[in-house]
């Protein structure tokens, strides 16, 4: 079928059985001892950056 103007539809990508890329995002070590203060500071910094109206704009369609 033809694609509508302005929409780029990705083709199915080349399938490479059994040879996926091992491209993993960085992860830190498993925490052993809680450091609540450090966590709280970082958490508060992130919280202040959140747009207060973000959830109002957030719309999804019904899933299962």
């Amino acid at each position, binding site marked *: *079928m*033809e*694609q*509508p103007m302005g*929409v780029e*539809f*990705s083709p*199915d*990508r*080349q*399938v*490479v*059985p*059994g040879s*996926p*890329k*091992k*491209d*993993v*995002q960085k*992860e*830190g*070590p*498993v*925490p*052993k*001892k*809680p*450091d*609540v203060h*450090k*966590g*709280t500071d*970082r*958490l*508060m910094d*992130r*919280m202040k950056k*959140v*747009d*207060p*109206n*973000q*959830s*109002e704009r*957030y*719309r*999804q*369609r*019904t*899933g*299962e």
Partner: protein
Amino acid sequence: MGLETEYGIVRNDLSDSDPVIESMEIVRAYQSCDLTGWLYQEEDPALDARGFRVEGLAQDEEERAFTQSDYTRFFSFREMKSDRILSNGGRFYNDHTHPEFSTPESMGILDLLRYDRAGIEILRLAARERVRLLGPGAALSLYRNNTDYHGHSYGCHENYLLPREIPFERIVEHLLPFLVARTVLTGAGKYGFESSERRGGIAFQISQRADFMEALIGVDTMHRRPLVNSRDEPHADRKRFRRLHLILGDANMSEWQTAMKVGMTEMVLTLLVGSEWEPRIVLSDPVASIRSVSASLRQQPTLPSKGKEQWTALDILEHYWDACQKSLHEWTSEERWVLSEWRIAIDQFREDPGLLADRVDWLAKQDFLERFREEESLSPDDPWLQSLDLEYHNIDADQGLFWALEESGAIRRLTQPNQVSDAIVSPPRLGRPRVRHAIICRFPNEVIEAGWEKIRFRNGVLLDLPLFQKSGEGEISDLLHRIETVATPGELSKTIEAFSGV
């Protein structure tokens, strides 16, 4: 066991984006897979475990209109689904406008947890690639939650394999009180209400899904959602097995909660299947009760029940724990860990629910939202609190609020990063996924479609895959060696049959 998680998706650089396109494209951006053809032939969501087939599934007017418009789009059903059968044995695809990762069939609790966590990493990798392909300025967010706060929900489904001979009704009747009660330990927390009587209210509750539960039992999953889903798709030998498909649980960020959710449930099912034990509890209205548990937070009420005994959610959990503890079943080390954590959690909740804030999403969330509210002098119904709730579930490691807590150790992590990295690409060492992966790799040009239990080849051969439940790692390795020496797909069936007989 297996978990299926639908993620919320939104483009941050556009004021309005098409969820169908976005879900398709993020799946297609993930380049590592064994196969793109899913075998839909064996699926029938209208088949009911109670022994009949429903004429149609419930859809509301809005969904009906969306579905109609989807049919007129420029792509086919299969293109829209964009299925990816991954090398780790999982499935990544667009399910009802949400990117969904289904774990491979897992034989253990911690194995399942590793694959569930690997699913988050897979979604991250796909998002990164999608943004790269879109070019400068593009941005998208993925949310591991179950609500958009505007009446729409998407799921995190649990699957448990059960012997067919156990009557479905026995499972449902005796599982229901437990399913209602477990909410208190497994809820993800939500700032908002969406049940018809409280819709739009901004206040905190335990569960993201409770408001969307409207029936005790049924085949529907998108509307009139039931506490126990009766869809009869075993994904295994129908004569021997059934699959219990639970759709009422939240998608947790906390690994402890995911492990406990599947661990406790699996143990209760083992108890019901393997013994004559029956709980003394019959809740009068389980649907109302799960909402009551969700809304009552740290002060759990007595739930209306038939009989003279009084039961709170904690009492019910203790009743089931006691039965598991006294059971003669030989629990595995993982299950014994679950039993121990289960007991500790009940005791700590009774002492002070805040003690569980290092492992329970809703308690952690409630704590930090309250601190933030006080610091910023916000009213209890300030919409900012709801936005913070949403951001807790953002899977971006540099933005999501949960990750700041986990990284600091304020929330427990159970998986090892290297094991999760391995789970992104490798199937579990036991069971069917490893065999499925090996066959697809052996005949990359001949396999055209695969599902959980069958593989279809270009020459028309349809191969059945048994579960290999009783096969050890060495036996599976032996089978894989034999598969490598098979010359044609037609020989696979005999090879597997001979092996299954071992």
